[in-house]
């Protein structure tokens, strides 16, 4: 340990600060990790119970066929839009303030996709027959489109996380502060020669572009799973884009929460600066308005047409049994974040943390409000209206999904620098000058007479 500490001290300042979490772990980390680990194990136990006895262990019924698992599926895949999309868009638009936040965002993406993607498998009546989706693939099924787009997305965002991390992995390898073989393997012989760097940046540039349509497709297709059915309040053309906007919104919120916590526990105040919270807060503000716009458009269209089948679901949400989750969603997704993010003083760590948590909760509720009220109000009106109370098994798996994701994210920060060291350095060494030149280039050229 002392040896690693000496080696760490020998590193330049950025690397020293950012690699410190890799070799120093506090008791608080272990405490939090064991609590989260216990919850995760509890949830795994709940799944074993469900696996042995059947989906009857849930609170699901007919016609309430989809519940917590599908809500979580939509929600977590939505959160995954935090990373890849935000990071790719900021990279392409040459937003220099991105440098400190891209890595933490990309990690959210890669880890959360896994937790999202297992939800429909947890939801399967016959998980043992999962491979039938390849053996008997029916390409007309939106579920299969989803399998494809999630596979693409997971692959692309894993590469998009890994490649920009290569120079940092090489730094850790050369500093020899931790698990030398592991990092020698991961760094894959990267030496940061000018030629390697040039190629790397070229690949990152291409990936950043490729990843955007893939990310958009993922949540569009998830919206389509619902929209392609004839169910009231699901069968809507707005669902594709509505889901994408909601996904990015929840992603930004989750990223803000992660940034505030990382900043606090790893003392990254010098990296996550007021400007980051200000800009991310503005993004959150923009998306709260977009969310309102989409939600309003969706509900007004249903209300104005007032088709009886649609109206049953509509009123169930507005004033019926789902009024509480509905208005809580409206408060968490719009009222609170909008009121907070309007003010500059609130676009700081505390304000964005509150708004971020509210939006994360609100977006979970939005998924709930999409899935459940429609499910319990079937189009066939002779069927009695169903009810749905999630069972202990479902709630345990829900808790385990959250804790498992947070745990994995925590562990990831112990093995990989959560802020890109080389990109910060590049910012200091190259970008400051480049940006000055770029801005100068934007300005009208002086005419020959003036000179």
């Amino acid at each position, binding site marked *: 340990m002392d040896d690693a500490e000496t080696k760490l001290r020998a590193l330049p300042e950025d690397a020293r600060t950012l690699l410190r979490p890799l070799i120093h772990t506090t008791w608080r980390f272990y405490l939090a990790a064991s609590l989260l680990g216990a919850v995760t194990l509890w949830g795994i136990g709940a799944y074993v119970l469900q696996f042995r006895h*059947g*989906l009857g262990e849930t609170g699901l019924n*007919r016609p309430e*066929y989809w519940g917590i698992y599908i809500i979580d599926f939509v929600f977590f895949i939505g959160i995954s839009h935090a990373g890849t999309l935000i990071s790719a868009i900021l990279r392409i638009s040459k937003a220099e303030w991105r440098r400190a936040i891209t890595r933490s965002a990309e990690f959210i993406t890669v880890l959360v996709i896994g937790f999202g993607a297992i939800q429909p498998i947890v939801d399967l009546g016959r998980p043992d027959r999962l491979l039938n989706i390849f053996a008997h693939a029916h390409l*007309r*099924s939106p579920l299969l489109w989803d399998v494809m787009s999630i596979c693409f997305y997971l692959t692309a965002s894993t590469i998009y996380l890994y490649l920009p991390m290569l120079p940092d992995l090489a730094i850790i390898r050369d500093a020899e502060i931790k698990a030398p073989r592991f990092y020698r393997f991961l760094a894959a012989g990267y030496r940061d020669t000018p030629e390697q760097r040039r190629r790397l940046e070229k690949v990152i540039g291409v990936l950043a572009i490729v990843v955007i349509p893939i990310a958009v497709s993922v949540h569009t297709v998830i919206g389509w799973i619902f929209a392609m059915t004839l169910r009231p309040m699901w069968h809507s053309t707005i669902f594709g884009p509505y889901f994408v906007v909601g996904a990015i919104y929840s992603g930004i919120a989750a990223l803000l929460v992660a940034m505030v916590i990382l900043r606090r526990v790893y003392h990254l105040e010098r990296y996550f600066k007021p400007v980051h919270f200000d800009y991310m807060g503005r993004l959150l503000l923009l998306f709260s308005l977009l969310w309102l716009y989409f939600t309003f458009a969706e509900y007004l269209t249903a209300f104005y047409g007032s088709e009886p089948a649609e109206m049953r679901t509509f009123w169930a949400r507005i004033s019926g049994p789902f009024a509480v989750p509905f208005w809580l969603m409206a408060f968490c997704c719009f009222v609170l974040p909008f009121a907070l993010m309007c003010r500059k003083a609130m676009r700081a760590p505390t304000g964005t943390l509150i708004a971020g948590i509210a939006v994360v909760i609100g977006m979970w509720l939005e998924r709930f409000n999409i899935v459940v009220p429609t*499910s319990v109000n079937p189009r066939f009106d002779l069927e009695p209206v169903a009810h749905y109370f999630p069972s202990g098994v479902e709630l345990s798996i829900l808790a385990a999904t959250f804790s498992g994701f947070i745990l994995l994210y925590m562990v990831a920060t112990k093995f990989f620098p959560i802020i890109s060291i080389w990109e910060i350095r590049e910012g200091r060494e190259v970008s400051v000058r480049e940006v000055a030149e770029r801005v100068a280039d934007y300005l009208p050229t002086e005419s020959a007479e003036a000179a």
Partner: protein
Amino acid sequence: MPRWGMVIDLDRCTGCAACEVACKSENNIATVRPDQADMGRAMSWMKVETKIEGDFPDTRLSFAPRPCMQCDNPPCVKVCPVSATYLSPEGIVGQIYPRCIGCRYCANACPYTAKYFNWFAPAWPDSERAHLDPDVSVRPRGVMEKCTFCDHRLQQAKENARAAGRPLRESDFQPACADACPTRAIVFGDLDNPAHRVSTLKNDPRATRLMESLGTEPKVYYLTQKA
């Protein structure tokens, strides 16, 4: 090629639910515990829906037996990721139980809520277990199941007709619900065969289909009540 269909005369239906019971014992439909049934997990491929209008004492009760509508354009078939539910050439929507992965997408896509899920492994009271129908496969836990117009009876009817060297007659193939109906409210046959009663009944002025506007093209017709 026949196109099997059903016409249900609501004027004749007394709501006795003989069709439900006949279907249940014919098709080995699992018996669900009362607490499970209260949760909405009871299974009934053929279900007599009840509608109560007005307040006591001025009430009006009406019934409508609801099997699978056997749509010609079935929304459940489109969405199945593994083609476990399919439309047969004779127009019967079937379910391949050993292939179904239990995602319940088909159940969500069906506007008639006509599909059922096995939340637990199927169970029967001993009295029922003694006479399960050997011609109908028992569904395992975790798969969807549905009305098949008693497809197994069609297979037998075809074999019998072939053995006797004669074409299939209307009376050869009747599903259990139609057989059991004491008022003959349920009429079954080939919708395209002029010799079968359903082919004329379906053109009756009272004939209608559930949610025709959805374009699912059900092959179950209802003759609406006169009064």
